[in-house]
């Protein structure tokens, strides 16, 4: 679950990390008033769950309250398309109005999971303010990784190594070392999957300030953070993905036109690969899970059908925990409810296969059966 910048900064503040003075505006008038109170100049930043908003025009340094008003008016209620969103973009419902800082230097700092080290890792770079993935591709030698041993926590020698790598000295180095320890504490306390500050700045008067803040909470750990659950902003999520997630269905919206319903994540990825190889780009990844009922399958198929770009549906089920008859009944249910006439290719195997086929045959739907993945691929490319 992603948090907004202003939410993340509130948490940072509680751990003693400096952030610029700021206030959230929900209307253009609020944007003007807040900017006015800040002395007339401010950074006005769209609060969206997507990186790359700067390049996409989601951030503006405003020199007057009127400029803030005009910018707010132009962006609030609109959709912002960034390199990290789809073509539709994400809605801008709030703006963070922030005091301007006198920047001397900018740093990148993040914490995430390092699968190879099987631990958390702190990542730093002196290339703060840039797109870090571009930096990683172009100049990987200025990206530094520091794995953190869970039993020890982040050790002081590691913070010294990082400030050395970043080329920082004096009081700022000590402040950043302290900040790193606090960030690791935030990461642990809130069960984060990603914490990122880009940029962390050193001001001209040597203050260390988090100019941006990104905090993703691990979905699997949300159950123990009741307070954080309330910070979820559903407006920022892909609506199909969000409603699938509500029903415990793993769904990812893709660009193609072949809707796919599969049980199991591995088989679902394999199914996309097969569809792609057959020349039919998948419209989605969907894992309906093992313990699905008729109704859950129907909901999953309905999510697929509600996607306007879908031109055909492939159901690929290896009946084990999810029985073939359940998959068949759910699919038929969804097709009928939606009065759907799109081609339906079904490949089923395993438990209750014959019952499943029987249900589909008797459904009145135009079902194309496939026994193997090869046949399924062929049927897709021909439909």
């Amino acid at each position, binding site marked *: 679950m992603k948090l907004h910048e202003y939410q993340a900064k509130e948490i940072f503040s509680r751990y003693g990390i400096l952030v610029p003075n700021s206030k959230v505006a929900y209307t253009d008038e609020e944007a003007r008033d807040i900017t006015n109170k800040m002395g007339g100049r401010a950074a006005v930043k769209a609060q969206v769950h997507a990186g790359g908003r700067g390049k996409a025009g989601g951030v503006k340094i405003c020199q007057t309250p009127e400029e803030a008003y005009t910018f707010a008016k132009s962006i609030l209620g609109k959709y912002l398309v960034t390199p990290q969103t789809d073509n539709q973009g994400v809605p801008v419902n709030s703006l963070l109005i922030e005091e301007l800082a006198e920047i001397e230097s900018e740093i990148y700092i993040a914490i995430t999971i390092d699968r190879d080290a099987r631990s958390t890792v702190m990542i730093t770079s002196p290339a703060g303010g840039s797109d870090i993935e571009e930096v990683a591709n172009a100049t990987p030698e200025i990206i530094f990784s520091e794995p953190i041993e869970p039993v020890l926590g982040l050790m002081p020698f590691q913070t010294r190594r990082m400030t050395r790598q970043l080329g920082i000295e004096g009081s700022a180095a000590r402040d950043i070392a302290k900040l790193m320890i606090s960030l690791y504490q935030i990461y642990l306390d809130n069960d984060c999957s990603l914490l990122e500050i880009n940029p962390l700045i050193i001001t001209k008067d040597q203050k260390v300030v988090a100019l941006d803040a990104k905090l993703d909470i691990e979905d699997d750990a949300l159950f*123990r953070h009741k307070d954080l659950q309330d910070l979820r902003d559903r407006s920022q999520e892909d609506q199909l993905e969000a409603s699938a997630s509500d029903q415990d269905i793993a769904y990812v919206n893709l660009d193609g036109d072949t809707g796919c319903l599969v049980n199991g994540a591995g088989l679902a990825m394999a199914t996309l690969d097969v569809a792609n190889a057959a020349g039919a780009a998948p419209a989605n990844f969907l894992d309906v899970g093992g313990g699905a009922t008729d109704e859950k399958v129907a909901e999953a198929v309905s999510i697929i059908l509600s996607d306007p770009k879908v031109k055909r549906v492939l159901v690929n089920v290896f009946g084990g925990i999810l029985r073939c008859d359940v998959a068949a009944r759910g699919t038929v249910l969804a097709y009928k409810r939606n009065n759907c006439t799109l081609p339906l290719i079904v490949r089923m195997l395993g438990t209750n296969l014959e019952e499943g086929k029987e249900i589909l045959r008797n459904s009145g739907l135009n079902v194309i059966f496939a026994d193997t993945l090869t046949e399924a691929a062929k049927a897709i490319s021909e439909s």
Partner: protein
Amino acid sequence: MGILLDEHSRILVQGITGTEGSFHAKACKAYGTNVVAGVTPGKGGQVFDDDIPVFDSVEQAVKETAANVSLIFVPPPFAADAITESIDAEIPLIACITEGIPVHDMIKVRRHVDRSPVRLIGPNCPGMINPAAHCKVGIMPGAIHLPGRVGVVSRSGTLTYEAVGQLTSLGIGQSSCVGIGGDPIIGTSFAEVLQLYDEDPETDMVVFIGEIGGSMEQQAAEYIKNHMQKPVCALIVGASAPPGKRMGHAGAIITGHSATSESKTAALKDAGVTIIPSPADIGTTAQNILEQIN
């Protein structure tokens, strides 16, 4: 023989009285598996499915039944506790099926596993099976398996069944099948399972099914290149996945070049592994290799 399991395996099911635990405990038993005990705190003294005693703790279960394999179905918030309880009771082999364990829990558990004499399979995995020993410790449909001499190892569930289904339909049996799990932090890696297969006299070759995310497949390629004696064929799924999106499995997410299907496939090819061209060709690729070595 096969790997990990044999006819001496005595299975304990943690979370046996839950929906999933009870369903699969019965299915394992029906397959012929020696399910000797169940554990659900607070339900000790009950009897499950006529003859399986339920205990309050793994410690008591091991003492009374000499269980030596634990199969875990408890919900995510309690999974770290369940795994460490089995380690505490000196169970040498644990398969944790539970999906959705917080990764911070698994970081700690994995450190503890590293200093304990235990093999953990999973979490978020289908478990493992040895068809010849009639021993199934997991959620795979038993009926599709056939005793034989091909080892299967995969991250995920249904795709493993797909692989096994293709093998069995060609009359190719399996020495063992292991699903190591789809999470970022798991107990046993591909390379470790490959080594077990390499050392198993009843395995002739291995079918290895990886996916996008992380770099475990590259480590396996490294192992194969430097150590593996037996032929391996491999499939990496997820070529169609966009970067940064979690494809169901918590671990299946492209976060850098090495996490892509291309990078993994290239590493395996470089290690001399036969690449399976499409998910539809798992069985036939294995068949070709078997024909060559026989």
